[in-house]
C-alpha cells in the first residue's frame, strides 16, 4: 500500500501537458524531415533538439505525478528506467524509415505498459499512477533519444545513424558506431529527473520545475549541438548551437527569477538567521 505524499495544486493539469508534449514532440521530429525534402541539407536538425526539450518537459511532469507516491526509490531511478526502456523502442523503430517516430511511440508504450504491469502486479507495488507513468516515460525516453539523434545526425533513420554524413572521413564516426547514443542516453536521463529532484519539497511550484526542465533540455542541446559538428555540416551545427544557446540563456534567467520569487530570502554573505528554540 502506497501513500500519496503530495498533490498537484493549481497549475496546468497533467493531461494537457501530456497531449501538448506528445503532439509537439512528434511535430518537431517530423520537421527534421525537411532535411530530406530540401535536397539533403542538415539545417533543420535543430528541430530534433526542440523535440527533445518538449519531450523532457512532458516527461519531468510525469515523474512528478509518479514520484508524488512513495515509490521506494530515488527520483533519478525514474529517469534511468524511462531511457532504459525507451532505448529498445528507439533502436528498433529506426529501421522503419519515415514511420520511425510512430513505431517508437507504439513500441515504447508497449514496453512501458509491460514494465508498469510487472511493477504493480508481480512486484506488488500497487501504485495507481505506475502503469500510465511508466508507459509515458518509455515513450518520452524513446522520443528524446530520437530527438537527440536527429539533432546530431540530421535524421532519425537507421541508415543515417550508422553511416557517415557530411564532413567526416572515418567510417566509425557515426551516432551508433561512435556510441554517442550513450551520451544522449545520460543527457536525457539526467535532464528528465533533475527538475523534480531539484525542486521537490513543500515549496514545489509547477512553473519553476517546468522552466528548469526546459533549461536542462536546452543545456543538453548545447553540448549535443557541439558534438554534431563531427556528424553534420558546420552551418547546420551552428544553427542548432545558436538555437540552443538562445533557449538556454532565456530559460536559465527565467528559472533564477522564479527561484528568487519562491525563496524565503535571497542573501549575500549573511549569517544564519536566528530561529526560536535552537
Amino acid at each position, binding site marked *: 500500500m502506497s501513500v500519496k505524499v503530495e498533490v498537484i495544486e493549481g497549475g496546468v493539469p497533467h493531461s494537457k501537458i501530456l497531449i501538448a508534449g506528445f503532439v509537439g514532440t512528434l511535430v518537431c521530429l517530423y520537421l527534421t524531415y525537411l532535411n530530406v525534402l530540401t535536397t539533403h541539407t542538415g539545417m533543420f536538425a535543430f528541430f530534433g533538439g526542440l523535440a527533445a526539450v518538449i519531450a523532457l518537459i512532458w516527461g519531468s511532469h510525469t515523474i512528478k505525478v509518479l514520484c508524488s507516491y512513495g515509490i521506494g526509490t530515488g527520483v533519478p531511478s525514474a529517469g534511468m528506467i524511462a531511457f532504459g526502456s525507451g532505448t529498445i523502442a528507439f533502436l528498433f523503430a529506426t529501421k522503419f524509415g519515415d514511420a520511425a517516430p510512430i513505431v517508437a511511440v507504439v513500441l515504447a508504450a508497449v514496453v512501458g505498459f509491460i514494465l508498469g504491469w510487472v511493477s504493480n502486479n508481480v512486484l506488488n507495488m500497487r501504485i495507481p499512477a505506475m502503469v500510465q507513468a511508466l508507459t509515458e516515460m518509455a515513450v518520452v525516453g524513446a522520443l528524446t533519444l530520437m530527438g537527440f539523434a536527429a539533432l546530431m545526425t540530421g535524421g532519425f533513420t537507421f541508415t543515417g545513424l550508422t553511416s557517415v554524413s557530411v564532413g567526416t572521413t572515418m567510417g566509425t564516426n557515426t551516432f551508433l558506431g561512435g556510441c554517442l547514443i550513450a551520451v544522449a542516453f545520460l543527457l536525457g536521463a539526467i535532464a528528465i529527473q533533475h527538475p523534480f529532484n531539484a525542486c521537490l519539497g513543500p515549496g514545489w511550484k509547477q512553473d519553476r520545475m517546468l522552466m528548469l526542465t526546459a533549461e536542462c533540455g536546452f543545456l543538453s542541446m548545447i553540448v549535443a549541438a557541439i558534438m554534431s559538428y*563531427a556528424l553534420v555540416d558546420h552551418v547546420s551545427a551552428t544553427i542548432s548551437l545558436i538555437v540552443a544557446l538562445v533557449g538556454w540563456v532565456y530559460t536559465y534567467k527565467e528559472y533564477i527569477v522564479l527561484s528568487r520569487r519562491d525563496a524565503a530570502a535571497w542573501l549575500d554573505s549573511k549569517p544564519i538567521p536566528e530561529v526560536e528554540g535552537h
Partner: protein
Amino acid sequence: MVDIVFGIGITALTGALATIAGAAEDTESNIGSQGDPNSQVQLAPQMGFMHRIFNKAVAGEPPAYGLWCALGAGLAWAFMAMYPNPVLAIVLGSVLAVIVQGVYATTAYLGRTASLAKFGQPVYVDILKSMTTVTMAHAFIAIFGTVALCQLINGALEHPFPLPLLGLIWGVTLGAAGSATGNPYYGKERQYQNQKFGAGVPISASGNIVRYAEAGERNSLDNGWFTAKIGGAASGLCFGLIVFLELWRTILFEKSFDGWGAVIVGILVILIFTIIDRYIEVWARKNYGPYSEIKEASS
C-alpha cells in the same frame, strides 16, 4: 595484442590517473553534499536547523558522474573526429562537461532551497558563487582524469569500445567508488561531529548537522577541506585499484585459456577482497562493538 611491458606501463598510468580522479571526485561531491549526506542537509531546515551548507543534489554520484564523464568523452570523441589532437580534445571536452556540471549544480541548489522556503531557509548567493566554482574545479580534475584514462584504454590498449561508452562505464564506476568509499566519512562523521563517535545517527538527532565551525559558521569548503584528508584519499585509492586491477588482469591473462584466464583471475581478486573485507569487519566489531548501553541522544 599489445606488448606486455607497454601494457603494464599504460596500466600503471591509468591507475595513477584514476587515483587522482577518485580523490577529486569525492572532494567535489562532499563540497556539494551530494549522495549519502544529502538527505540530512535537505532535512536540517525542516527540523529548524538553518545552515550555510551547499546542497547540490543533481542525482546520485554514479549517474551524475556517468553523465559528466560520458559527456566529456563524447565531446572529446567529436573533437578528435574533426582534428586528431587527443590532448586538446580531452581538455576541451572536459571543460565543456564541467560547465554543464556547474550549471546543474546552481539549479540544484536554487531549486532545493527555494522549495524549503516554508521553513525559512534562505538562498545564500555567496555560497552559490564560491562553492560552485570550487566543485567545478574538482570536477574538472575528476572528469579529465577519467576521460584521459578512457582514451588510454581505447587508444593505447586498443579496447574495442568507443570513447563515449568507456566514459559512461568508468564515469559510473568513479561515482560509485566515491559514493561508497568517501561519502560515509562526510555523512556519518563530519556532519555528526556533535554526536558520540561511531554512534550512528539517532532519529532524535536527524537534521541536527554541524553548522558552526571552529570560528564562525561552517560552509561546504570546510567539509571539503576535512574530507580531502581521508575520505578523498580513500576514494582515490579505491578507484585507482579498480582501474589498475581490471586492466592488470586483462593485460596479463587475456591470452590464457582463450580469454577465460582474465575472468578467473578477476573472480579470484574479488574473492581475496571479500576475505580481507570480512576480516576487517570482524576485527572492527571485536575491538569497537557492540555498544555497552543505549544512551539518549541530545540535540
